[in-house]
Each structure stands twice: as structure tokens, then as C-alpha cells.
């Protein structure tokens, strides 16, 4: 038996090293053992190695032992070898010179009889990651790929990928990608095939920026022969590899419907797989394949519903969260399909609140005529929940359901019951909701006002709730007996009111009250205006001043400004635009779903890999949302200054989204200058070319539309006369699909005229202009100085479609344009047309 190593007496557990002085101790002992061939050496070595590695694990730098470790590595014991490999892999990068010492024994192990050792050695060899040692890698990798044991081949395939990351040229020069491709299509072992696939995907994606061929190969992976090859073997793959294959299939575009059904039939049993990742990947394939077939798409929802719900209830909390996030997305897209399963979204007492929050949103979405009663009853139980944030959320949910339903009788009663619950946070939330409800259903004012009138403003502390209460006092002062006096007492306590929002509302409310009951309010109004003028907050000051001058000028005008008759709000601006939701849906089974934002909002541009297009559209929608998506009905209120109430609220609800866009803005700015690297001469040429060539067709279109555009008088007709269909139609789905499929046929940069820049205040201005040139806009957005547009146009009397992405930076007066076309040959002609249309923008 082996003599116990002396040091083991000192520290009882090898994994609990005492300190740094031990490193030099270890060094000494290793040195002693290095040359020893005595029996039992391996056991002593093993203890020593264990100590070294536990030191390494704890974070003590043991790289000084490198030489000794390598000397001790001559052994036949596989555990020793493994520990040694681990050590070497960890420190080789910082000790490139010493790493050379290990090459020798690793190379020898690569030729070992035991395939396990061959594999391990090869893996370690590739994990050294020292750039000047790559020459030693090529040989072992080459023979590893031809090894007759599949374990060694799997390791070698990943090894190629590792080599590529250390030195791409060495990897390409050795023609490894080609070997991998051959292996992928011919190897018996599916793990080898799967590894080839993941390695090749990565290599070709990285190569495709420089090499045409790699780009083509990558595209080929999504072609029919490849996809069918993988699909036919899908059941042999390990569950993880199946996920990989599904990702690939989701990108495949089948040629006809029968193909789609074949694929779905083949994959249907994957929905029953025990591995949630496989189920979700399959779900993605199903959803994406059927996008174009509305009725089948619907059936797919029905089909995937049960497996996903099972996953939620039978998995661990972490798994259910990931599934729930995806379910949340689906529920938001097709709430009616899930409306009978609403009970699955009931919250459990001990669920974490982020899960409860998701579930509450889903409950809100699935509520319809038949289940509203049950859902609202359930939500009301949460209002008494110990978890206060959830109690608040559930009250808000009740309010949202009320706003989306036509039959609100029962819900209004519930809300009013909340007001009587005498819990301050419940009262606050309910007040805000009653306010929103009244904006949408003014007919309920009698009932609500009766209850709201009983609430003492002293009991309401939260600014939002207080603002809501004050708004109601102002708006319904004719119905609330003591409104002027309540407002008066609030004005008296002006200095104690810390929230500017509340003070702003107070000003407006006093104004409104004044118009309705002047004698009672006059004193309060005077006090409020005086206090407002002396206010340190700029907005409050300005508003007070504005009201003051307005009243001075003409009282009846003031009334029509401050208190005009109002229309009920029909739809509240949605917190997340549908484009963003679609974008997230396209990125199903990815982090986007969990974060509830498209990937462009949280991954930076250069590493987005294959999802180039997916980032673009969403960009716009977010901006568009802040821009012009306010519903007309709300505009009426704008006059009333009550928009403040709605906008501040919108901001709050939209918190995650607005954070995202706030983050996004700088990165977007950054990308513009980097892309303007095109030679300037080129630019100048193209812009002159534009004015010279295009006007003729441009004018033709003007005439066609009967619009009187007295623009440019150039006469040279453009060589291929291209006319566009003025009534081209394209739905966003097709646009996205086409954008993804088509290659960029033209990418140019133009300068814009100063006049054009001046008129580009909102995206809409340009939209109308381009429309007059038969170029339709499908998505737009942005704020000065950056605007982004997606246009499309159709050739007259032909189905050929042009897609354009246009980024305009008004500060540099440049626009970047990417054109994709069904008919590549005419894209140049279209480009000139587009350019001319753009150059005319802003001209009188």
C-alpha cells in the first residue's frame, strides 16, 4: 500500500488549503515526486494534484507550479492525467512559453491506445489556446477527425472550432471546414454530426463577412437537402442536438404547404418530449412554419397549448418561469385561444412575485365576456394579499379588464369596493383606475363620484392617486358638492405638497372648478395662481403664468382652452407597440422573450450574428411609439393639459420599454458615423446622378397621381424606364420575410438638401412625400437627428417588389440606403428613382 503523504497530517481535508505559503510547499513536494518511480507515487501525486487544483479553484495563483506539474505529468493514471489537463488548460494562456512543455506529452497521449485518453488529450490540447502553438494542433486534429472511435471524433470536431478561434487562417488553410462538412453529411454518430453542425454554423457565420463562399455555405445549411438530412435523423440526435436542429429548421422556408405539413407531422411527437428545451424549440418551428397560413397557425396554438401548460406545472420553478415567459408572449398574441385555460394563470401563494406579475398580465389578456366574472373575483382576492406590490398589480389588472370590456357594471362595483377597503395602497390604486375608467366611460360618473366624494384627500398620500383625485375634483366639480372647498384647503397646503405633478393638477383643477362654480372658487384660484407663480418648479410656474395670462386676456377663451367638452377615450395608447411584439415573436425561444424586448435592445450590434434584420424594425417602432401614436381621441384632451396625466402614467407603465429605448439611442447614434465610411467622391457623384437621371419617371408618377409638383426640369430620360405601381400593397409579415430572404442588392449613401432636412421634423412628413412618388412606407420612426424608414415599392404591372431601408441623419444631412429587390437587375434603376424622390423632398 502507498505510504500516506506526510503533508496529509497537517491539513485533514485536501480541499481546504491553509494559505499561500503552501504553494511553495507544494512546489517542493512536486519536485521530489517528479522523477520518482517508486510504487505508490501515483497516490501521493494524486493528493498533491488535488491540493493544487483546490488552490486554483479557490483563486490562489498556483501558476508558479507549472514546470513541476508538467514534470509530474508522465503517468498512466487517468485521473492524474485529467487533473493535469485541467491545470494546464487553466494556466497555459498566461504561461505560453511553459505551455510548450506540455505539447509533448499531450501529443503522445493523442496517440494512446485508449480512445478515452486520446479524446481527453485532444480536448486539452485544443484548450491550451496559445497562439504560437497552433502548428502542433493541426496534425492531431486531422488524425482525430479520422479516428475510428466516435468519442475522439466528437472531441476533434469541437477542437476544430477551438482552433478557429485561436487562429482562423490555420483552420481554413488546413481545410478543416470542408472536412467537417464531409463528416456532418456522412458520419454514423449523431453527436459528431451535431457538433459539426454547431461548429460549422459558427465558423461560417464568422467567415461570411469576408468570404463569399462561407456566406453561401451558411445559406446552404438552410436549404432543403440539409434540412431534410437532419430531420430524417432527428430521433437519433441527443436532446440538445435536437434543439440545435430545430433552430435550423425554424429558419427553413418550405416551398409549399404539403412540405410544411410533412415537417410538422415528423416533429409532432417532439412536443411530448421530457426536455422542455426540445418542446419549446419544436413550438418555435411550428409557429414559424405556419405564419402564412392563418387557420393552421390557429390550430398550432391549440396543439402546443397543452404541452406548454404541462411544462409550466410539472417543471421546476426556474423552468416554469422560462416557459411562462413564452406562454405570456403567445397569450398576448392570441388571448382568445387561452381564454378557457384562465385557471392556469391563477397565482399560487408562494410563487415568486415575478411569476405572479406575468400571470396577472395573462389573466388580464384572456379575460372575455364568459370568464370575466371568475377572473375578477380571483383578482379581488389578491387585493388582500400580503404581498403589497402584487395586491397593487391585481387592482390594476381589474382596472385594465374594465377598460377592455364593454360590460363593466360588475367591475365598477368591485373597484368602488376597493375604495372602501380603507387600505391606503388599495385606495390609491383604485383612485387612479376610477379616473381612467371615467375617461373612458363618463356615463359612470354618478356612481363613482358618490364614492370618491367620501374619500378625504388627507388620507391619500401617493402623488399619482392624489393627482387622480384632484383631476376628478376639477372635472366633476359641478357634481361634487364640496369640491371648491376641498380644493381650497389643498391650495392652502400648497407648500406641503412635494410632488410637482400634484401641484400641476391642482392648478388645472382649480381652473376647471372656477369655470363651473366661479363665486365659490375665485378665492382659491387667486391663491393657487399666486402660489404657482412663486413655485420653484419650472413647469408649475409656467403653467400658472400661462393660466394667469389666459384669464387676463379673455375668460371665455380660457374656458374653451382649459375646459372644453371632452370625448370619451376609446383606446388607451398601448404600452408596447405591436411591432415590438412581433419582433419578439420572431425571436421566439430566445432571451428576448424573457426580457420582453427584442434582442437589438439588449445585445450590441456587432455580435448579433444571424439576426441582422430582426434588429431593424423594432428600432423604429419604439421611437414611433414616443412620436405619433397618440390616439386622436386623446388629442382632444391635449388641449385640456390633462395629457400630462396620461403621459406621465404611460411612462410609468412603460418602464422597461423606455429604459430599453434610452439605452438603445446611443448605440444607434454610434452606428451611423461608422457606416459613413464610403468615399465622399462616390457620394457626390451619385447625388448629381440622381438629379440628372430620375426626374422623368418621377414626373410621370406625379402626373399619374394628379399632384401638382413643380419640380426639377431635367430632361435626360433614364435608360430603363421604370414605373412604379402607385397602389402597391404589402403586409408587414411578407415584408419581413422578404427582407430576410433577399440579399442586399444595393447599398448607397446620399446627401440630402438642406430644404429636405428642414422639413424633416417628424417621420410622417417624408412618408407623405414618398407616397406621392409611389413609394410606400411600412415602418418608420426616430427623432431628430436620426430617422429610420422602411419603404417598399412595386413595379407597375409586375409583381416585382423593392424593399428599402433608409436611415437619415439630419445633422450630417446624409441618408444611407439599402435596397433589396425581387428583380436584382432593375434595382439600380429603382435606386435612382428613389434618390430623385428623396432629393425632391422639402422643395416647394
Amino acid at each position, binding site marked *: 500500500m502507498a505510504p500516506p503523504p506526510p503533508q496529509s497530517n497537517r491539513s485533514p481535508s485536501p480541499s481546504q488549503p491553509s494559505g499561500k505559503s503552501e504553494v511553495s510547499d507544494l512546489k517542493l513536494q512536486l519536485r521530489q515526486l517528479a522523477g520518482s518511480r517508486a510504487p505508490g507515487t501515483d497516490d501521493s501525486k494524486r493528493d498533491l494534484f488535488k491540493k493544487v487544483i483546490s488552490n486554483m479553484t479557490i483563486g490562489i495563483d498556483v501558476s508558479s507550479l507549472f514546470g513541476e506539474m508538467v514534470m509530474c505529468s508522465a503517468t498512466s493514471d487517468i485521473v492524474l492525467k485529467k487533473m493535469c489537463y485541467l491545470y494546464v488548460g487553466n494556466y497555459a494562456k498566461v504561461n505560453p512559453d511553459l505551455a510548450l512543455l506540455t505539447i509533448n506529452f499531450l501529443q503522445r497521449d493523442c496517440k494512446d491506445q485508449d480512445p478515452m485518453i486520446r479524446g481527453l488529450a485532444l480536448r486539452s490540447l485544443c484548450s491550451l489556446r496559445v497562439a504560437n502553438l497552433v502548428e502542433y494542433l493541426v496534425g492531431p486534429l486531422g488524425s482525430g477527425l479520422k479516428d475510428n472511435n466516435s468519442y475522439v471524433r466528437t472531441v476533434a470536431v469541437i477542437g476544430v472550432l477551438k482552433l478557429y478561434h485561436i487562429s482562423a487562417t490555420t483552420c481554413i488553410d488546413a481545410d478543416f471546414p470542408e472536412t467537417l462538412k464531409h463528416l456532418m453529411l456522412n458520419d454514423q454518430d449523431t453527436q459528431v454530426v451535431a457538433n459539426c453542425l454547431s461548429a460549422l454554423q459558427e465558423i461560417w457565420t464568422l467567415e461570411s463577412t469576408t468570404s463569399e463562399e462561407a456566406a453561401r455555405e451558411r445559406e446552404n445549411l438552410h436549404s432543403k437537402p440539409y434540412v431534410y438530412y437532419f430531420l430524417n435523423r432527428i430521433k437519433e440526435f441527443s436532446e*440538445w442536438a435536437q434543439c440545435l436542429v430545430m433552430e435550423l429548421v425554424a429558419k427553413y422556408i418550405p416551398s409549399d404547404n404539403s412540405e410544411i405539413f410533412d415537417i410538422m407531422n415528423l416533429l409532432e411527437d417532439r412536443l411530448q418530449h421530457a426536455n422542455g428545451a426540445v418542446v419549446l424549440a419544436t413550438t418555435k418551428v411550428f409557429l414559424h412554419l405556419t405564419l402564412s397560413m392563418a387557420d393552421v397557425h390557429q390550430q398550432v396554438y391549440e396543439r402546443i397549448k397543452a404541452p406548454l401548460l404541462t411544462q409550466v406545472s410539472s417543471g421546476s420553478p426556474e423552468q416554469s418561469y422560462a416557459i411562462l415567459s413564452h406562454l405570456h408572449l403567445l397569450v398576448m398574441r392570441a388571448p382568445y385561444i387561452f381564454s378557457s385555460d384562465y385557471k392556469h394563470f391563477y397565482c399560487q401563494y408562494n410563487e415568486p412575485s415575478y411569476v405572479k406579475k406575468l400571470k396577472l398580465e395573462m389573466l388580464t389578456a384572456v379575460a372575455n365576456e364568459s370568464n370575466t366574472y371568475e377572473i375578477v373575483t380571483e383578482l379581488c382576492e389578491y387585493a388582500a394579499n400580503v404581498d403589497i406590490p402584487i395586491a397593487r398589480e391585481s387592482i390594476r389588472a381589474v382596472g385594465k379588464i374594465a377598460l377592455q370590456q364593454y360590460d363593466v357594471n360588475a367591475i365598477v362595483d368591485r373597484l368602488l369596493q376597493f375604495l372602501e377597503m380603507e387600505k391606503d395602497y388599495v385606495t390609491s390604486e383604485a383612485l387612479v383606475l376610477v379616473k381612467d375608467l371615467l375617461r373612458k366611460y363618463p356615463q359612470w360618473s354618478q356612481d363613482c363620484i358618490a364614492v370618491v366624494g367620501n374619500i378625504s384627500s388627507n388620507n391619500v398620500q401617493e402623488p399619482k392617486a392624489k393627482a387622480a383625485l384632484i383631476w376628478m375634483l376639477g372635472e366633476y366639480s359641478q357634481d361634487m358638492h364640496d369640491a371648491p372647498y376641498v380644493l381650497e384647503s389643498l391650495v392652502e397646503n400648497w407648500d406641503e405638497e412635494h410632488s410637482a405633478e400634484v401641484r400641476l393638477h391642482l392648478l388645472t383643477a382649480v381652473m376647471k372648478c372656477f369655470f363651473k362654480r366661479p363665486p365659490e372658487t375665485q378665492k382659491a384660484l387667486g391663491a393657487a395662481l399666486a402660489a404657482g407663480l412663486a413655485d420653484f418648479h419650472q413647469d408649475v410656474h409656467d403653467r400658472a403664468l400661462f393660466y394667469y395670462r389666459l384669464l387676463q386676456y379673455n375668460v371665455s377663451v380660457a374656458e374653451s382652452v382649459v375646459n372644453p367638452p371632452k370625448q370619451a377615450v376609446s383606446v388607451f395608447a398601448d404600452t408596447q407597440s405591436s411591432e415590438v411584439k412581433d419582433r419578439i415573436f420572431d425571436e421566439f425561444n430566445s432571451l428576448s422573450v424573457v426580457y420582453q424586448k427584442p434582442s437589438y435592445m439588449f445585445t450590441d450590434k456587432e455580435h448579433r450574428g444571424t439576426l441582422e434584420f430582426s434588429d431593424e424594425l423594432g428600432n423604429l417602432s419604439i421611437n414611433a411609439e414616443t412620436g405619433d401614436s397618440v390616439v386622436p381621441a386623446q388629442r382632444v384632451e391635449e388641449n385640456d393639459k390633462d395629457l400630462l396625466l396620461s403621459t406621465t402614467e404611460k411612462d410609468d407603465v412603460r418602464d422597461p420599454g423606455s429604459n430599453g429605448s434610452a439605452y438603445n439611442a446611443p448605440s444607434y447614434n454610434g452606428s451611423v458615423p461608422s457606416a459613413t465610411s464610403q468615399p465622399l467622391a462616390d457620394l457626390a457623384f451619385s447625388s448629381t446622378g440622381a438629379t440628372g437621371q430620375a426626374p422623368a419617371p418621377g414626373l410621370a408618377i406625379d402626373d399619374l397621381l394628379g399632384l401638382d409638383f413643380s419640380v426639377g426640369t431635367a430632361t435626360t430620360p433614364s435608360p430603363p424606364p421604370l414605373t412604379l405601381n402607385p397602389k402597391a400593397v404589402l403586409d408587414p409579415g411578407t415584408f419581413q420575410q422578404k427582407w430576410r430572404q433577399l440579399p442586399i442588392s444595393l447599398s448607397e449613401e446620399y446627401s440630402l438638401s438642406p430644404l429636405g432636412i428642414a422639413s424633416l421634423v417628424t417621420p410622417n412628413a417624408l412618408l407623405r412625400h414618398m407616397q406621392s412618388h409611389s413609394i410606400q412606407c411600412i415602418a418608420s420612426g426616430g427623432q431628430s437627428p436620426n430617422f429610420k424608414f422602411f419603404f417598399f415599392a412595386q413595379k407597375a404591372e409586375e409583381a416585382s417588389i423593392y424593399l428599402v431601408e433608409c436611415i437619415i441623419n439630419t445633422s450630417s444631412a446624409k441618408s444611407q440606403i439599402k435596397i433589396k429587390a425581387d428583380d436584382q437587375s432593375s434595382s439600380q434603376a429603382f435606386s435612382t428613382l428613389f434618390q430623385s424622390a428623396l432629393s425632391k423632398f422639402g422643395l416647394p
Partner: protein
Amino acid sequence: MLQCIFLLSDSGEVILEKQLTGHRVDRSICNWFWDHTNSQPNSYKVVIIIIIITFSLSSIIIFDFSVLCLQQQPVIASPTHYLFQVCREGITFLACTQVEMPPLMAIEFLCRVADVINGYLGGLNEDSIKDNFVIVYELLDEMIDNGFPLTTEPNILQEMIAPPNIVSKVLSVVTGNSSNVSDTLPGSTASCVPWRTADPKYANNEVYVDLVEQMDATINRDGVLVKCEINGEVQVNSHITGLPDLTLSFANPSILDDVRFHPCVRFRPWESNQILSFVPPDGQFKLMNYRVRKLKSTPIYVKPQLTSDGGICRLNVMVGMRNDPGKTVDSVNVQFQLPPCILSADLTSTHGTVNILSNKTCTWSIGRIPKDKAPSMSGTLVLETGLERLHVFPTFQVDFRIMGVALSGLQIDKLDLKTVPYRFYKGFRALTRAGEFEVRS
């Protein structure tokens, strides 16, 4: 694509670190994670295994997750990486990424890692991981390469790396060969049944099938059964020589609302005849999960009553059997959280013991429900001064266990063995437990 694996102890100390790709992840991410976890309300201190996945980039992305991170979420964003975490028996597994990837894949993989390590070490705790970290390294080495999951089947892994059980320790002392790595590669890595050990041999061939069901139910304030559902599992423990082909059928498969299977189950026989046909992995495994919806009643009832007046709240809870399932209901336990506005509580029970912990968790352990008399618990709760009535009502979480019955009514019809001409022993069992069984008051 995972990049690095860390194991942290309950004090945030790194137990184990495994870098997977060339892009090295700095240890400081653990500190960030630890601070982040501790800064969250309701976070629990646990032994933590962090698996870091990063990608070939080093840009900094900053987020404000104040809204989303009410408690620690399974997927969170750090300034440099995205972290996935999974918590098992006080141990959290955490992974991280800088590009898009299927989040469920990462989480699912972490769950498997946890399961495998748990199986190997016979339980997850800091000491056992520290004592066996070489094995954990070896396991991770085989389970994932360059960030992509490889083999996670316990059967296969056990052939590559022997578990550190007592038998192998004894064996190593006797034979003097203390390597825990088998000399040969598992044959099944190349076989067509990747989940099965190549050719096991047993003196006694036996298969045990267990139906284990969990009842999730919610009873609302008015005593109405709002939701009642059963999540069941068919657990099989198989020890059969050779390559057996088993078929298992149920007497009433139509009651199952949805099912999911271990990869070994063939889909077609199930689709056409609701028969489970499979070549089992060796040893213990989960053959299938199922879900049965819309159950009409629960085996026991719990009726809480709260009446409050003048700063005192009177509490009375009755527990009893509803429809006698024919078997004894035992391990009955009622637990609830006293609302924060309660100053003191005085509770007594006619059966079992009542315990109130310092964090205001009240547990009433009943054990077996007596046949003759329904147990009850009653007493008074004193409210905070100034509070007349109770506004926040506790939710009662109920635990019970019934041996010998699958409450969903699912019954196994028969189990047959094809292809192998042995006689074998079959055993069936059933068990129902309370899952999320809650009663609101």
C-alpha cells in the same frame, strides 16, 4: 453556449470554477452576482453554483431591471453577462451569456447538471462538492464541451465516471486500483439506444413502476374549489439483463389531459393505442409525466374562519376527510404566514401540535387524521394597536400524503416484456401528495 462554470458556497465563496471556452470569464462576476442577490428583497442565502456562459465579446451593456427583479429571477442581466440560475436544495446553478440563446436550454441544462451531481454525490451540499470536486470537474468535462451540451444521460456518465459510492471505495482499497474512471468507453455511446447501459447483467430481473401524483388545488375565500389539477409521474426502476423491450398500458388512458415522455418512449404506439412501448434505461428513471385537469373534489377539507373585532382576531381552522379515499391520509400539515400587523398569537389545537416561528410562520402538524373526530385549531391573534380589523388574510398551505392511491384514478393495466426470455418480477405502487394545495381565508 456556456463559457464558464463556478460553484459558490453560501457565503459567496467560489467552490469550483470551470472555464469552457477561450473567452475567460473573470471571477468578479461572482461578486457581482452575490451582491445583486443580496440586494434583492426576499432573496435567500444558499450555496451557489454559478455557470457562466459568455461569448466572444466584451462590450458592456447596462440595464435597469428594477421593475422586473422583484425577487431573484432565473434569468438576470449583469453589466457584462446574462446569468441563468437554478436553485436546488439550497444550491443555485448559474449560467451566463452575451448573445441570444434559448433560455430554457440553459436552464434545462443546469437542472440536468444539478440532477447528475446530486445523483453522484448522493445529495448536494458544500462539503460533498468540495470533497469530490475532481468528480464534478470530470462530469462537467463530459457533459459540456466548448459551451455546447453533450451527454447528460446519467446511465452513460456513470459508465464513463464511476460514482464515489462506498462500494467503489471498498473496491479500490481491496484491489489497490483507485481510479474512478472506467478503462473503456461506454459501448452505448455508439449504440442505437443511447440512454441504456450496453449490456447489464442481473441475477434477479425486476421492474418496479410507481405512480406518484401531486394534487394542486386552490380553494377560495368562499370555500369554492377554484382549481384542482393533478400532476403525475410514472417512475420506473428497472433491472433487467440484456436489451428488454417493455410495454406498459393503462386501464383508463383517456383521463390524461397531456403527457410527456422520456426519450425512450416510442411515440406511434401511444398515438394509436395509448400503449407505452420502450426500451428502459437501466435503474431509476422518469418514464412519463402527465396532467389531469378538472378534478371535482379534494380528499380533505380545510375550513378557516377569521372574525376580528376591537383589535382582536379570532381564528378557527377545521380539517377533516371529505370523501374517504379508502386509505389513510397522513403527514397532514397546515402552514400559514401570520400577517405582519399581528403582534401576538395564541393558538391551540385538539389534535397535533402548533408551532409559531419567529418569522411569523405558523405550522400545525396534524399527522394522521383521526377517524372519529375532525381536528381543529383555534385561538386569538392580537392586532397592532390602532388597527380595529384585519385587512390582510393569510393563505393556508396544506400538505398531506395518501399511500396506495392515485387520486386521478389512473390505473395500470399490465406490463409486458418482449424480446428477452426471462421471467421477471413486477411491482406496482401508487402515492398521492399535496402539491400546491392552498386555502384562502
